[in-house]
């Protein structure tokens, strides 16, 4: 059974059908690419899965549950975390606070317990330990008390991934994780993604225009065009697909 | 002998800002005049006592009044305050005054809510509105009004006057009273005027209108009422604030009042010879005429100072002696005579109407609150 399954998903904005009857599935532990021309509905699809946008039609099934009507916080708690096309960190908070905020089930988030430090301190220590691990993995540990706004563009992207990981997601949705990132760093980000999949079994659905990097890492690719699924297949298949080459590469 | 000179501080706690700021300023001038006159007399007599004024702004709120009184007292050691102005400000300052033995001599507060026995509030000049409301009820009955429409300020003064008037009017055999409240500070009263007019129309003939308004409200009301066919065809009564010079400055407003046989019951009476002297002195000192209630502040300050001269700068002594001094004082209004609440018990009012040339308000009669009788000249 796939981890995530979309059945006939549709989204209308006024008279505009941004996503039209898309069905796809994401197997557990895979890295799936989602590509397509600008405005083809990729970001909208990510928003639909993450619950930030309401579906017009269709169903979304995740890990055996129908999550079509979940709000974004429910989706996250169910195990789907996301990154944004524009970095959406808490810029006025430190990297550490950014990382700790999404942790689930924090006792200190209950205002009854919050004033009594002893009630949540032990738990917070555990979370701090995992934050050390995760920040270490994205090489941000030495910046733990830096404000997110003071990080460089690439570091921001990495912190966004780290923050999503702290929610211990099963599935991570990333929207152009390397837009505006220098090629070397972009490659490193993808290496990191590969390692997370291998070591922690996290599944990825990634929107990306930089195919020269993306295609090195993906197991399977879906191509969108005008809101529809145009093609799917392995990276090699897609690179050779005539229509894709036409609408996407402009040949 | 300079060293032996003693200084008594007279607190002046009034609304200088907010929508009664104009009254506060003018009252303070009245007090200033009184103080300068008393000081001059003390100097001429060679007495080693002088008065000084310490004034603070109530911001026209009760809590502000409490803070202002507290500041004046704690900054200068004042034991006596002239003001606050309105009944709610007076009540706001009451707790601090009572607890700390400070005497409040309120020149113009007349709301029924301030009539409390045994406390430190003395409303020495202006009688409580129970009298005026009775006078207005009598006039209305005498004019043959079967029903009445009242437009009143939505504050202790306006509500108290309205309640008192309604009770007296109906007790005297009057019919229905329709009352409309307007918010203090409102600058535009056209819907209120329309409502009043409609109510008057509903009552048919023999209905009268009674306006309990402050100056700005009265102006806003007159501005719309002057073209209203019904309002301009009935008889009007109104409180004293409507006799301000600014009203007559607008010929349309003056004409409207004259046509409506507008009558007011005013405590400001030319009955003592000191009134004109006060007006002249005030004009000489400040280069402008005193405002409408300013002489009450002048009188209140005089009573406060005379008491202090007799009892010293000590709240408790002043409190015990003040009724005696007040009862023996004759000022620009009438004599004072305090009741058990510390309020003016003498209620002899003048009745005023617009003069034929629209230039002033003429005294046309008198009302004696203590005997409840109206006499016309």
């Amino acid at each position: 059974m796939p981890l995530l399954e979309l059945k006939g998903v549709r989204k209308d904005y006024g008279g505009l059908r941004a996503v039209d009857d898309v069905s796809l599935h994401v197997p557990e532990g895979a890295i799936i690419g989602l590509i397509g021309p600008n405005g083809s509905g990729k970001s909208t699809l990510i928003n639909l899965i993450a619950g930030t946008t309401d579906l017009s039609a269709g169903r979304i099934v995740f890990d055996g549950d129908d999550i079509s009507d979940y709000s974004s916080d429910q989706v996250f708690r169910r195990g789907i975390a996301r990154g944004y096309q524009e970095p959406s960190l808490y810029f006025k908070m430190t990297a550490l606070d950014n990382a700790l905020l999404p942790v689930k089930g924090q006792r200190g988030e209950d205002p009854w317990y919050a004033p009594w430090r002893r009630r949540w301190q032990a738990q917070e220590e555990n979370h701090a330990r995992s934050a050390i691990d995760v920040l270490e993995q994205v090489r941000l540990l030495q910046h733990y008390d830096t404000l997110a706004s003071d990080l460089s563009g690439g570091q921001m992207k990495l912190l966004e991934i780290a923050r999503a990981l702290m929610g211990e997601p099963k599935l991570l949705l990333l929207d152009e994780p390397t837009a505006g990132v220098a090629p070397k760093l972009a490659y490193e980000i993808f290496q990191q993604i590969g390692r997370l999949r291998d070591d922690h079994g996290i599944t990825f659905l990634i929107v990306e225009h930089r195919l020269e990097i993306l295609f090195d890492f993906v197991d399977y690719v879906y191509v969108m065009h005008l809101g529809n699924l145009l093609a799917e297949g392995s990276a090699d298949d897609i690179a050779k697909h005539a229509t894709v080459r036409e609408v996407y590469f402009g040949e | 002998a300079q060293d032996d000179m003693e200084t008594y501080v007279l607190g002046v706690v009034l609304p200088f800002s907010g929508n009664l700021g104009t009254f506060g300023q003018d009252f303070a001038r009245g007090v200033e005049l009184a103080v300068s006159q008393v000081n001059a007399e003390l100097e001429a007599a060679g007495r080693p006592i002088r008065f000084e004024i310490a004034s603070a702004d109530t911001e026209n709120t009760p809590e502000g009044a409490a803070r202002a009184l507290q500041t004046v007292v704690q900054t200068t050691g004042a034991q006596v305050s002239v003001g606050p102005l309105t009944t709610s400000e007076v009540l706001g300052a009451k707790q601090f005054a009572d607890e700390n033995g400070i005497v409040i001599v309120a020149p113009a507060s007349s709301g029924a809510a301030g009539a409390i026995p045994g406390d430190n509030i003395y409303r020495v000049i202006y009688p409580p509105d129970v009298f005026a409301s009775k006078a207005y009820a009598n006039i209305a009955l005498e004019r043959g009004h079967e029903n009445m429409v009242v437009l009143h300020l939505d504050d202790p003064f306006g509500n108290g006057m309205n309640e008192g008037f309604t009770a007296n009017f109906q007790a005297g055999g009057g019919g229905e009273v329709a009352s409309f409240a307007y918010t203090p500070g409102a600058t535009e009263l056209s819907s209120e005027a329309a409502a009043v007019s409609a109510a008057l129309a509903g009552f048919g003939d023999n209905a009268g209108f009674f306006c309990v308004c402050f100056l700005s409200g009265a102006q806003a009301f007159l501005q719309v009422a002057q073209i209203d066919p019904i309002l301009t065809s009935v008889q009007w009564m109104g409180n004293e604030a409507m006799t301000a010079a600014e009203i007559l400055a607008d010929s349309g407003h003056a004409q409207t009042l004259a046509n409506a046989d507008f009558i007011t019951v005013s405590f400001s009476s030319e009955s003592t010879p000191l009134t004109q002297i006060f007006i002249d002195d005030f004009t000489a000192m400040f280069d402008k005429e005193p405002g409408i209630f300013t002489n009450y502040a002048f009188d209140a300050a005089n009573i406060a100072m005379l008491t202090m001269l007799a009892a010293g700068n000590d709240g408790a002594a002043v409190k015990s002696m003040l009724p005696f001094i007040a009862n023996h004082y004759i000022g620009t209004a009438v004599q004072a005579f305090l009741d058990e609440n510390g309020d003016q018990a003498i209620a002899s009012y003048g009745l005023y109407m617009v003069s034929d040339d629209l230039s002033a308000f003429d005294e046309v009669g008198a009302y004696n609150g203590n005997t409840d009788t109206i006499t016309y000249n």
Partner: protein
Amino acid sequence: MIKVDSLTAGYGKLEILQELSLAFAEGQFSALLGPNGSGKSTLMKAIMGINTIFGGSIQLDGRELVGLRTEDISKLGIAYVPQRENIFTEMTVLENLQLGLRALPREQRQDALEELLKLFPILGRRESQKAGLLSGGEHQMLAIAIAWLSRPSIMLLDEPSAGLAPAIAGDVFRVLQDLRRQGITLVVVEQNARRVLQYCDYAFVLREGRLAFEGSAEDCLNDEETIKGYLGVHEGAVSTSP
């Protein structure tokens, strides 16, 4: 020609560019390369008079730009497409385009608009849409369009192809080449170094606020050190370039 001379510039008290000197020759298509945070955008902002300039000079055909207001610099014929926030999101696409046209004489506006819509037909279809609701790529096209509509003699573009699908990105580069042929001086910041180097004449590589390399596009492509050390251009296993 824009001539930058020992320019020190940054934000507030922070100095990013250090004594930078370089020149963008007239009619040339120059690429501005370098890792994240190396100061490429900062240089463009300095030319436009947006950030703090601590010292040095920037001259346009001998005329000093330092000290001029942004709007006056723009009037000298320099158009700039910022990296972010480069469209009027609350206005419609058409209004955005009209704002781009405001510098043109009235009679040329219609032609310019028609020409543009041939280039980016999707913008025509989105004419009455609020610009803030465009997709990432549509957004980027609109930004370039606004700058181009003023018919500038110099264009500064900060990562014009970021977020664009290869087909559109290809179009953009072809448009840039066209513009260069029309005699417009171009300065383009780009992360996709390989690609831009195919189109441009000349390249500058910045690192930590200093000039690390300058030379013709060819030299740059052949300069192993620059490619590996500063750009780290990666060649994908699957060939995706057309």
